[in-house]
């Protein structure tokens, strides 16, 4: 009996004895795959083109593979598996941006895996180049000059099958901040965020996905309430939204986490008549009322325009009874506009001034006019029809305004030393300048100049280097591109630049 009990006890207790095992241990390289080659530190890819990487693996008969990517700025975002083959041959469909790229090889028998990591930068073919806004026979479209200088004509019609009616007025690019609602076939509504390109003609406004230029919102889809009168006069971007001037009313769209990508209720326009020129900053806008001849500040979270100027900053007052010749912001970097310049001329004594109304800090219920520079009578600048300013602004760039009278010459006026340089650039005879731009980004070091001109029904884009850190332009064009149609203006887009105003 004792034996039986002892045996039973032993058997039952044996189940509790820790199993220390008795296994054959192998070296890792005997059970794990071995990747003989090494991924590059980083790769660059273009949207919709092929990304091919061919790693070398030891053996491989019993291995399975995975390539996946996830955004560097949001490491917790889901990984996107882009291939299950050893050799990656991927049509790049992920959105533009920076990603971690991971290659994984797994031994199917032992279940062991090895990994290699790299970085992948994806950019769209549309993420770097010039967008030329033009019109032909009453229709507006864009020609795109890519990073290699190739010109793709009529990209709106090419991509979407349709262009826009009218003549281009303004366009803006704004990277990853536009949020809009998408309804799927089941009726479920989700919110998407996209880099967008918005084009305003004198007859229409549309919003395009800036990675592929596909139409994502047309006129009827961009308002809480579609305006009774469709008469667009301009669009401007700020860090967190757009301002639309339509039929002499201002409407704003603010971006935020909960946003819906719609223009809000029109601000009361009262007796104002808005000039089709404006300046934008972080989230505020400065416009000009042609009736009173004065500046107005708008901050889309305050229900009325501001007319008061901070008295503590010279000149400390607003201006009345002036005509506006030109007005725009001066880009610095990212979403930041450093300065704003306006050229105004008194209706009373015909005296002219350059002033700097700042659209920043409008949440303070006043705006700032941060400088006043009298202009001498007869100055060539006052005959200008096409203007731009040097990027950067105080402490970064130069207080220089480039201008053309609409012929084939570019001049500039230096506000700091009140000197004019004539014929800084001269285009071929017969070309008529319609647009100037100094492309500048303090942070990423982008710094060049371009001139857009028309002649004989074609447009000509001339690109120039700057003379170091001076306001001077090397007058020999480094590139010239041409296409068909009457150009109005252009936008240069760079992958590292977040927006243009």
């Amino acid at each position, binding site marked *: 009996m004792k034996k039986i009990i002892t045996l039973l006890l032993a058997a039952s207790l044996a189940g509790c004895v820790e199993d220390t095992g008795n296994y054959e241990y192998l070296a890792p390289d005997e059970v794990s795959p071995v990747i003989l080659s090494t991924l590059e530190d980083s790769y660059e890819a273009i949207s919709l083109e092929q990304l091919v990487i061919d790693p070398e693996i030891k053996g491989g008969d019993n291995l399975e593979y995975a390539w996946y990517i996830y955004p560097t700025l949001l490491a917790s975002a889901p990984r996107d598996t882009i291939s299950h083959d050893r050799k990656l041959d991927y049509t790049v469909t992920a959105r533009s941006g920076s990603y971690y790229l991971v290659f994984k090889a797994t031994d199917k028998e032992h279940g062991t895996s090895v990994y290699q990591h790299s970085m992948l930068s994806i950019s769209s073919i549309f993420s770097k180049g010039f967008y030329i806004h033009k019109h032909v026979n009453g229709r507006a479209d864009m020609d795109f000059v890519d990073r290699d200088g190739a010109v793709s004509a009529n990209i709106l019609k090419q991509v979407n099958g349709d262009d826009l009616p009218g003549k281009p007025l303004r366009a803006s690019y704004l990277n990853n901040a536009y949020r809009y609602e998408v309804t799927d076939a089941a009726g479920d509504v989700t919110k998407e965020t996209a880099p967008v390109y918005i084009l305003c003609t004198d007859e229409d406004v549309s919003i395009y996905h800036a990675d592929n230029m596909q139409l994502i919102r047309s006129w009827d889809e961009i308002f809480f309430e579609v305006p009774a009168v469709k008469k667009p006069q301009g669009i401007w971007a700020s860090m967190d939204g757009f301002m639309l001037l339509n039929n002499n009313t201002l409407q704003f769209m603010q971006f*935020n986490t909960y946003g819906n990508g719609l223009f809000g209720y029109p601000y009361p326009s009262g007796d104002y008549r808005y000039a089709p020129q404006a300046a934008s900053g972080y989230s505020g806008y400065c416009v000009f009322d042609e009736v009173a001849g004065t500046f107005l500040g708008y901050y889309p979270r305050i229900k009325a325009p501001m007319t008061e100027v901070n008295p503590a900053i010279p000149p400390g007052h607003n201006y009345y009874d002036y005509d506006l010749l030109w007005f725009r912001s001066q880009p610095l970097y990212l979403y930041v506009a450093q300065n704003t310049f306006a050229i105004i001329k008194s209706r009373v004594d015909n005296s002219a001034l350059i002033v700097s109304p700042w659209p920043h800090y409008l949440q303070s219920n006043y705006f700032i006019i941060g400088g006043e520079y009298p202009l001498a009578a007869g100055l060539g600048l006052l005959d200008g029809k096409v203007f731009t300013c040097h990027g950067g602004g105080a402490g970064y760039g130069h207080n220089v305004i480039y201008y053309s009278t609409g012929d084939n010459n570019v001049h500039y006026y230096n506000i700091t030393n009140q000197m004019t340089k004539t014929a800084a650039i001269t285009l071929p005879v017969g070309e008529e300048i319609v647009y100037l731009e100094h492309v500048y980004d303090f942070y990423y070091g982008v710094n060049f100049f371009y001139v857009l001109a028309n002649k004989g029904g074609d447009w000509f884009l001339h690109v120039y280097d700057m003379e170091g850190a001076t306001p001077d332009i090397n007058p020999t064009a480094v590139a010239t591109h041409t296409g068909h149609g009457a150009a109005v203006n252009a936008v240069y887009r760079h992958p590292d630049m977040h927006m243009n105003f």
Partner: protein
Amino acid sequence: MKNRIIIYSILLLALTACEEKIVNQFDDAPSLFFNRTNYMNAQNDSTSYSFFLAPGGTTVDTVWLDVRLSGLPTGQDRPLPLVQLNAGDSMAAVVGTHYALPASPVMPALAVSTRVPVAVKRVSEMDTSEFRLIVGFTASEHFVAGVKEQATYLVKISAMAVKPVGWDDYYNATFGQWTQGKMRFLIDYLNYTDFDQSLVDTNTSMYLRLKVNALLAAYEEEHGPLYEADGITRVIFP
């Protein structure tokens, strides 16, 4: 003998340690309870219905009761033993006058929940008074008494302006401090009645703010300033 006891005890312990535990399956009697939705971090134990928020002229509307089953569904419809628990109390809603329950509500076959419509009816006293309807369940051949904390539900019926629960958190920035006159204007002129939304989108907020100011300006141009019921406090929006 002592050793045997110890040995048998050890053996018994060792063997019972290996016994598989059998989890009892649910075999309790079915019962009913009211689902309490989580609204703005609070468990709703009641609903306030006001004809003030309904389009002008509305005299009958519906409040839905969310009834849940505790227990197993069956293959047949089972009558819901819904009753008013506060009949005869002061300010209690009167059946037929202030409300009506469906004649034969049921928990449908194979269902574990159902929504029961309560018809609420407007009477003139509701402009200044609130009537209360407390509903619950009686025991029946199909259901026993259920979760005590969720065995009753209160429906408050009036036609008075009621400050929405989330006003201070989500509407102050758009419309300013709550008032009856302001609420009436929002409903009648802005056609805004869904105050259960969390109004956190600044774009939508600004759209509503500009629009209601434009509507008020148009109203005042035609009728003059708009005042609260006291005739003194002017209705304005920020």
